[in-house]
């Protein structure tokens, strides 16, 4: 997957050294200004609209809509569902995040082959639709506070497993999630890194994805966010909707308790 649409590759290779000396504060102030100019008119809105349409439209082998999909608050309830996921689902007997749950609904209600969707690369085929659906569902919880359940034993267990995954060093570079997100006030290059072992605050980290990424013009759900973190950690490939990604999401989501969701956000 070439994540660098258009001219980003030459940028990465040539621009940094070409920058003149600018005081550090000025650079980050400038970047804040830049972000503010983009805040109005987030292209994520295009994906929200598409997702809402996909939810209501009869599709798939069974030619059915997703309007009876149970995202944890009962069939058809989508408002507020996002800020309570991942959670335990009795019907599948497993922990599920928003995207894996949407695939379950697409399989059960519309007759798609869920395993096939899970295998489809991000940004292709039905995966594009899963992302659009997740974007819309998330937008329906905008402004609400994260409040994941820790009542079921599996919810607690996945939090504990997620915590271990967060601190798991591996790959060729010995990186864990905590290498970048384990301390407050750190940066990679000029990019601020949220501390994710506790709540990083409203609209930061877990409370910002799905997000539209300006660098490549792509809409990313949390599954792809985590997938690309692992790629940059030089880890092997985490399967879509795999228990590792859901346990890690559970850890991040529980830590984000009380943080206001701004998803879908606009990101670098």
């Amino acid at each position, binding site marked *: 997957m070439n994540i660098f649409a258009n001219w980003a590759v030459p940028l990465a290779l040539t621009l940094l*050294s070409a920058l003149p000396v*600018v005081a550090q504060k000025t650079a980050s102030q400038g970047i804040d200004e830049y972000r503010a100019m983009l805040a109005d008119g987030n292209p994520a809105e295009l994906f929200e609209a598409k997702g809402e349409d996909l939810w209501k439209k009869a599709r798939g082998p069974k030619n059915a809509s997703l309007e009876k999909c149970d995202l944890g608050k009962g069939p058809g309830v989508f408002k507020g569902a996002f800020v309570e996921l991942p959670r335990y689902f009795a019907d599948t*007997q*497993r922990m599920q995040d928003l995207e894996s749950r949407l695939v379950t609904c697409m399989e059960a209600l519309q007759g798609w082959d869920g395993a096939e969707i899970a295998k489809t690369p991000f940004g292709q085929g039905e995966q594009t639709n899963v992302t659009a659906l997740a974007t819309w569902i998330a937008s329906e919880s905008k402004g609400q506070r994260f409040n994941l359940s820790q009542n079921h034993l599996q919810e607690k267990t996945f939090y504990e*497993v997620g*915590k271990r995954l967060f601190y798991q060093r591996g790959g*060729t570079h*010995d990186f864990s999630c905590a290498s970048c997100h384990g301390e407050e006030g750190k940066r990679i290059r000029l990019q601020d890194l949220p501390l994710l072992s506790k709540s990083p605050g409203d609209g930061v980290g877990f409370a910002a994805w799905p997000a539209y990424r300006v660098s490549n013009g792509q809409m990313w759900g949390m599954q792809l966010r985590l997938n690309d973190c692992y790629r940059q950690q030089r880890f092997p*490939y985490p399967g879509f909707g795999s228990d590792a*990604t859901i346990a890690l999401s559970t850890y991040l989501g529980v830590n984000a308790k009380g943080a206001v969701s701004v998803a879908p956000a606009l990101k670098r």
Partner: protein
Amino acid sequence: MKKNTLYLAASATLGLMVSLLLAGCASGPTVAELDALTDRIVKASFRTQGIANVERVTATDETNRACSEADAIGKRLDEKTAKAIEEANFKSIRWPADGKFLGDWRQGEAIAQNGRGLTWTDDAKMANGGNCYNCHQMDKKEISYGTIGPSLYNFGKLRGVTDPNSPEARAMLEYTWGKVWNAKAYNACSNMPRAGHMGILTEAQVRHVVGLLLDPQSPVNQ
């Protein structure tokens, strides 16, 4: 239809595994059970893709295992374990075959700027970057630097390296080489990758990076 049940069935397997594991524990799983479950979930969740083999996470070495465990419980390694890890990593350092520690700082700068290589989207044939600027300030002219590691601006100057060929500079040359080659030889659970030890950088690349850090002509020391 048969196919359709596969996703549900396959995904329920681990769920079932969790239930079985937890059967009969009213107080929840023990630490050992959670560790074992994490291992199983990792094995079931990650796969080899491109040059990123699954062993990169299923077969991590003792250094990473001990440090991950300590991180997860929020404690530092006990002194004895830390020492043992540092010694083992120190032994693995490959010193320059020709005795030359200092390479070309210009090439070192390019390596320090480059954050590429070894991901599942990278080609095994391409030269890897050192990722240095992702975490460290180095040349003061580069404003886009990370802060995960300490600033390395004036690294050699601050350590009194004025003539890298002098006997007085020898110890600093060795330390810098060793630190770049295997950071865990000096700090068991350092956040810094082991560039030489893990095959991220070649011996020649390590030499250039050491040049960038210690050469008095290097922008790092201006």
